[in-house]
């Protein structure tokens, strides 16, 4: 899982998934043996165990992986307040001046988990935009709402 390794390197995290690793189309999973033992028809399998992430374009980590990394010490993190956190969850980028504190050096090109207290809201990459430095949103938990709305519209 090269994409996962690259993502973990980019946010400065050490993490080794435990269990059987499985690919279902563009998604990467890991499953306990007891769960993997229930796979008997790979062709019709749509989901198994923990979603590590999706590999379409940039690697998009699964919510479970983000949750776990958010609780660990080591990954680069920035903390924001609730207002900025909500804007981030709505898909917006974070201006550097809105960052309350950070763990990891705030250098361009580095990726950071975006934290609201103890909760991980997603992750982004520090970039320059003109005179401004922003944390470019790569993935946020508001994606669940956008997916749900997409499903409703397609009904």
């Amino acid at each position, binding site marked *: 899982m090269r994409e996962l390794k690259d993502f973990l390197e980019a946010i400065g995290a050490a993490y080794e998934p435990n269990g059987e690793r499985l690919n279902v189309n563009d998604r990467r999973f890991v*499953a*306990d043996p*007891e*769960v*993997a*033992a*229930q*796979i*008997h*028809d790979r062709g*019709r*399998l*749509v*989901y*198994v*165990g*923990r*979603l590590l992430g999706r590999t379409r374009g940039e690697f998009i980590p*699964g*919510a*479970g992986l983000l*949750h776990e990394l958010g609780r660990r010490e080591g990954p680069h993190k920035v903390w924001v307040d*609730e207002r900025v*956190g*909500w804007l981030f*969850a709505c898909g917006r980028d974070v201006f550097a001046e809105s960052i309350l504190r950070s763990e990891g050096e705030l250098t361009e090109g580095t990726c950071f988990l975006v934290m*609201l207290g103890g*909760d991980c*809201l997603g992750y982004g990459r520090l970039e320059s935009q003109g005179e401004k430095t922003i944390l470019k949103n790569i993935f946020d*938990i*508001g994606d*669940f*709402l956008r*997916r*749900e709305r997409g*499903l409703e519209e*397609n*009904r």
Partner: protein
Amino acid sequence: MGTSVFLDRYKAMGHELRGYERTRRAIRVNTILANKEEVMQRLGARGARLTAISWLRDGFHIEGGESSVGASFEYLLGLYSIQEAAAQFPVEILAPSGGEVVLDMCAAPGGKTTQIAAWMGNGGAVVAVDVRRDRLYALENNLERTGVENCVAYCADAAGLDYGGTQFDRILLDAPCSGNYVTDKDWFKKRDIGDVEKNALEQRRLLAAAVGLLRPGGTLVYTTCSLEPEEDEFNVQWLIENNDVRLEEVSGPGSPAFTKVLGRSLSLEVAKCRRFWPDETGTQGFFVAKAVKP
């Protein structure tokens, strides 16, 4: 057929319904990622009022609040799910626990699947199956959002999938049904008795398959959100007449199922099942049966 045909049927069953009863908004705390006190505190701080539903382990009615219940940090973080109160009841009757292997036969969009996983403490294995790919996307989102890690999900007819010889400890058959008007304002326009009878046949096919997949001593919970006896009591009567299972008492809110209805007399055993009438429980219409394979 129109509204009156159904309302007259319900009246003949002892329930004078108006045809526009609605439910109270309910959530279920996701015990995989949170505890009830934490969710009450966090949503309370946003101005929401939560009232525990006495007959549910993790269910609350919710009112007020500064944001939509489906668009809060806590929802996006998977700390709770939006799940109507009656829809939370079947898994309470199934009562799965960690280490078991459980089958959820018509699983999408996954509210009950994630509830099963929570009851199992994310241990053991839940096999979730649904034939409709479009509805499975919602299930996948729900599994991811709520931190479920013990689930294997398939897009298939649950009666025809290769389970590798697994005999399940517990099976939930939340069967595709006619639904009811409480959660669908256009329901009366869409439904007729022909639909009900067609659904009943499909439900029997799935019931027969479920019994075959259950281990001896295993538990099957059959549930519909239909008020129609053809999909409820008549199917349970068919189940006990044609399969080696015995019914167990379902206790809780609502009423015992009918043993005499629409001109038919059924086994007295059928009264062990439970009916949720919107005018009695303040929920959508629901039916729950519990059977054990000897």
